[in-house]
């Protein structure tokens, strides 16, 4: 199987350097899948007129030919067009005015044309038509994809902070266990089964504030792509989904920034042109600790000190027409500390991520786009607290150094080859200690993950697109290799109705142990000789259509079976092998999702509904009887609306209804005491998660007022948000109170109505 990886590497090199050596000649003459020689090639970048920032996912279309392309993560596109014809090319992207231009290519000619899109009405060649990005998504062969722009993130209600995870949780198929958990449970998968990338760097626990917020600063984000299932061969190492977040490159023309003050934290962003590129820096910090100290509450109520911060930076340089480099970094820390002088009640918890990436984007020729990415990522969680007179210490660290290379070869108007490889050097460390005793667990592993992939998007007709792919990967701690075939098919029945299907096998080499109620103390470990990698097969079938003008409707159904999934053993972790930490079992999930969306006009938003079934089975739990994991929600309905009242006011609202989460029924209890001391009653649970809490529902509202502050432009926004408008305190979990006789159960509830406000000023 390693020969396949070698083959991928060879394909990569041949595709890249074989062409670059003689770029003066038409590429089509030298490869097996030649472009039609009667064609020319139009390529370039799509950019924002105000900042020069490249635009991801813009559509470049020639309507008369029913032919088009979508700009990639770097904003680049290449489109073969018939020679000798005058053609009108339209370029569009959500939130921008559609730009059109006539072009005429000669036989074999390659034209580089950077299209500049404007958010303002401009004179000249532009036509004033707002675009609908869902149309681009409808025509893409990729299933189950959702894209978000910063403007969408900013316009929706927030609980103190705008947050992309909160918005993603409103998408059908994305579940959560509680409103204070930002973990994404996608189509029956747990959060560890999602690959989360920030500018190509893997993040392992992208959460702040015990999971209440994600680590992504909304001011620094340029684009968010979520693939809920059936993801292509270029992604791997996870079973369920891919979330790819791209940070802004920065303004190429002007220096500007923004300052936002909120109830929980403040943010600041600065962008400025540097050389042939730009630099962006964004920072955010909470001041909960400062408020508690200033008001004296920390001392009078014995409250712990808590804060989080994060810092994003990105530096880009265009090195001529064919090369661009980018260096980006992220650092974030959460810290909770409590010390009242007694070791028995001392708590010190820290967790965070640091990541950095250096990427080189290179055009080997107009139709061959490549990206080389070297990334480093460090995740740590340190938990220290008093257990009586002993100190308990939990220390988990992950270092991930990865080299990725991706190559996209647009070989003809109906064929795009993608290939690449990844090499990752991990270092995992886990140390659990009580007092001065020898560690209960002391695990250090330095495995190497390797992967290679190849996929081909082939469009035999205007309606049909077929994308077969193959990914092969493995980890050095095991001798077996994952062979992951992928296939997706798209068929456009008519311009308003598209059918898509996808199949794939997926392998995962890292396991996560975490408490689903808090997404803070995550423990990641690589598979070893005692435990095989998690494996899934995914089947997705969907339609995408236009039921009414400006509306799109997507309906998808999926089935996913999983093997070697893990469940944390309930006792303290003792041992140095993965089988000491986890139970190993199997699972499946299937469901049906409806996503009705409106992206243009004064009213925008969506209605999402999902019906989902998720089960897990473990020999050690209820004798292999299937049970629903905590995040299994049978019904999940989300309504998200934004209305632009006038030039100054925008209002928004969200409503969520979901089936109650499963919990285990307490069937009895026993007295646990010590000699001559009664001790306390310990509950005994029956079948795991066999009952459900009451249904979850909540409504949030928001209003945003735009105004001018020391400027003749509307450069400031004041937002007021009301979280949980009708004050329905949802159930977090169920607690058994054995202090009562007989014992009673009570629902521990979540947040009441919570108004928050914030101010943002741009300069």
């Amino acid at each position, binding site marked *: 199987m390693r020969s396949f990886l070698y083959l991928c590497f060879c394909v990569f090199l041949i595709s890249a350097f074989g062409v670059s050596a003689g770029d003066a000649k038409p590429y089509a003459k030298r490869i097996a899948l030649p472009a039609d020689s009667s064609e020319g090639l139009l390529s370039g970048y799509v950019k924002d007129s105000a900042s020069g920032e490249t635009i991801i996912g813009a559509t470049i279309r020639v309507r008369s030919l029913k032919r088009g392309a979508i700009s990639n993560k770097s904003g680049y596109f290449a489109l073969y067009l018939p020679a000798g014809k005058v053609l009108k090319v339209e370029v569009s992207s959500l939130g921008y005015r559609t730009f059109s231009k006539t072009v005429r290519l000669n036989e074999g000619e390659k034209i580089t044309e950077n299209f500049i899109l404007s958010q303002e009405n401009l004179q000249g060649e532009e036509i004033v038509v707002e675009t609908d990005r869902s149309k681009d998504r409808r025509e893409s062969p990729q299933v189950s994809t959702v894209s978000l722009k910063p403007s969408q993130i900013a316009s929706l209600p927030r609980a103190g902070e705008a947050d992309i995870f909160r918005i993603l949780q409103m998408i059908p198929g994305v579940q959560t266990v509680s409103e204070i958990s930002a973990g994404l449970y996608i189509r029956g998968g747990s959060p560890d089964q999602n690959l989360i990338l920030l500018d190509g760097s893997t993040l392992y626990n992208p959460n702040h504030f015990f999971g209440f917020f994600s680590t992504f600063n909304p001011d620094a984000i340029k684009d968010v792509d979520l693939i809920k299932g059936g993801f292509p061969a270029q992604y791997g190492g996870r079973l369920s989904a891919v979330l790819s977040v791209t940070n802004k490159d920065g303004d190429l023309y002007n220096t500007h920034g923004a300052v936002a003050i909120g109830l929980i934290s403040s943010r600041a962003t600065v962008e400025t042109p540097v050389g042939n590129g730009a630099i962006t820096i964004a920072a955010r910090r909470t001041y909960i600790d400062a408020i508690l100290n200033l008001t004296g509450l920390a001392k009078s109520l014995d409250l712990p000190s808590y804060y989080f911060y994060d810092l994003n930076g990105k530096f880009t340089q265009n090195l001529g027409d064919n090369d661009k480099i980018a260096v980006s970094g992220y650092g974030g820390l959460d810290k909770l500390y409590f010390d009242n002088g007694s070791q028995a009640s001392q708590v010190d918890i820290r967790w965070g991520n640091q990541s950095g990436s250096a990427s080189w984007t290179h055009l080997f020729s107009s139709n061959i786009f490549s990206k080389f990415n070297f990334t480093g990522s460090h995740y740590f969680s340190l938990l220290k607290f008093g257990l009586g007179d002993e100190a308990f210490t939990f220390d988990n660290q992950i270092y991930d150094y990865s080299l990725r290379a991706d190559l996209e070869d647009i070989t003809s108007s109906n064929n795009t080859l993608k290939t690449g490889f990844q090499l990752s050097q991990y270092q995992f460390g886990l140390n659990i200690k009580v007092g*001065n005793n020898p560690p209960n667990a002391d695990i250090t592993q330095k495995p190497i993950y390797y992967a290679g992939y190849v996929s081909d998007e082939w469009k035999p007709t205007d309606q049909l697109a077929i994308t077969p792919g193959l990914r092969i990967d493995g980890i050095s701690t095991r001798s077996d290799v994952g062979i992951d075939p992928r296939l997706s098919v798209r068929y456009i029945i008519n311009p308003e109705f598209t059918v898509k299907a996808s199949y794939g096998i997926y392998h995962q080499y890292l396991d996560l142990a975490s408490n689903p109620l808090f997404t803070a103390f995550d423990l990641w470990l690589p598979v070893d000789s005692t435990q095989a990698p998690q494996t899934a097969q995914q089947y997705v079938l969907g339609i995408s259509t236009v039921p009414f003008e400006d509306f799109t409707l997507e309906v998808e159904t999926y089935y996913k079976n999983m093997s070697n999934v893990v469940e944390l053993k*309930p006792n303290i972790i003792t041992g140095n092998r993965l089988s000491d930490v986890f139970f190993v079992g199997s699972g499946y999930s299937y469901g049906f999702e409806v996503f009705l969306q409106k992206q243009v006009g004064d009213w925008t938003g969506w209605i999402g509904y999902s019906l989902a079934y998720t089960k897990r089975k473990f020999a050690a739990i209820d004798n292999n009887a299937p049970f629903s994991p905590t995040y299994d929600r049978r019904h999940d309905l989300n309504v998200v609306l934004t209305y632009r009242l006038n030039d100054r006011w925008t209002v928004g609202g969200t409503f969520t209804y979901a089936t109650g989460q499963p919990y285990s029924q307490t069937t*009895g209890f026993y007295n*646990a005491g010590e000699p*001559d001391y009664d001790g306390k009653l310990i509950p005994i649970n029956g079948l795991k998660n066999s009952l459900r809490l009451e249904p979850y529902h909540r409504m949030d509202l928001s209003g945003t007022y735009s105004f001018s502050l020391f400027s003749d432009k509307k450069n400031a926004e004041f937002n007021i948000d009301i979280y949980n408008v009708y004050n329905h305190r949802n159930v977090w979990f169920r607690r058994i109170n054995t202090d009562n006789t007989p014992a009673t159960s009570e629902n521990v509830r979540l947040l009441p109505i919570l108004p928050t406000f914030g101010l943002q000023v741009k300069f």
Partner: protein
Amino acid sequence: MKVSSKYSVVLALLIAAIFVGCDGAIESNYTPQIVVQSFLYTGEGIDSVLLHYTTPYTKSYIDSEYAITGADVKISVDGADFQLLPIPNRKGRYYLPKSTLTVQGGKVYTLTVTADGITATAQTSVPLPIQITNRATAFPADRILVLDTNDATTFTYTLTAGPVDNPHRLYMLQITSIDTTYGKIPTSNQGPPVDTSAYVRYSFIQTAPNMIIYSRLFGWFGPNKIKFLALDSNWVDYKRAVGYGANSFSPFQPSLNHINNGLGIFASAGWDSITVFIKPK
């Protein structure tokens, strides 16, 4: 495809989904399990093995109601089996006099309980005996300790024991009021003891056999017996699971259990004791 028919299919699917998506809850049945509480001490007989059944969730725990009577209880050591006897008038308690079996450090004891066709077993590896090594100097010569409240800062003394049979051994103190007629010690402003009526209190676990004796360990005036315990690993796990499980950050779960086919504790300790007199100021 006509638009209307297209969407009626989607609508029909949606309605069908809502109905098929209703699945019922599965109630779990209560199954009684044997609960064991037994602690062995070096140099002692087996004074009591407590046996109960678990209590159904809807019922109150009443010692006598769930005590297991008529159980077959055996202790095995060095290949020999010893049948335990029920303690007269104390339901669910079983014992073995010291004259029949004296618990010895360094040996492994196996408990087997059979009741109503259910058999539960457990093992403990008994620590070696310990002795308090600063008996003469740890306290004032008359061993009278004076305090007005149980404020932690009123007094502190250090009690040391040995030998250390295992570098990983953990230790604990048991403080027993021998005569509660002397009255309760007033609580200090550092908070009342939780077990206001209990006449036995336990310290936290310590990693070395040097225990700080401070005033908050005492609940009652009068004579108090300080038992210095060297714990086996079962007791340590039990203490962590049951005692510390209430800490929301604790990774220890109450399910940390060493009884096969049952619940509870079968543990042992090496020990020594010293008695002091707590006198009101």
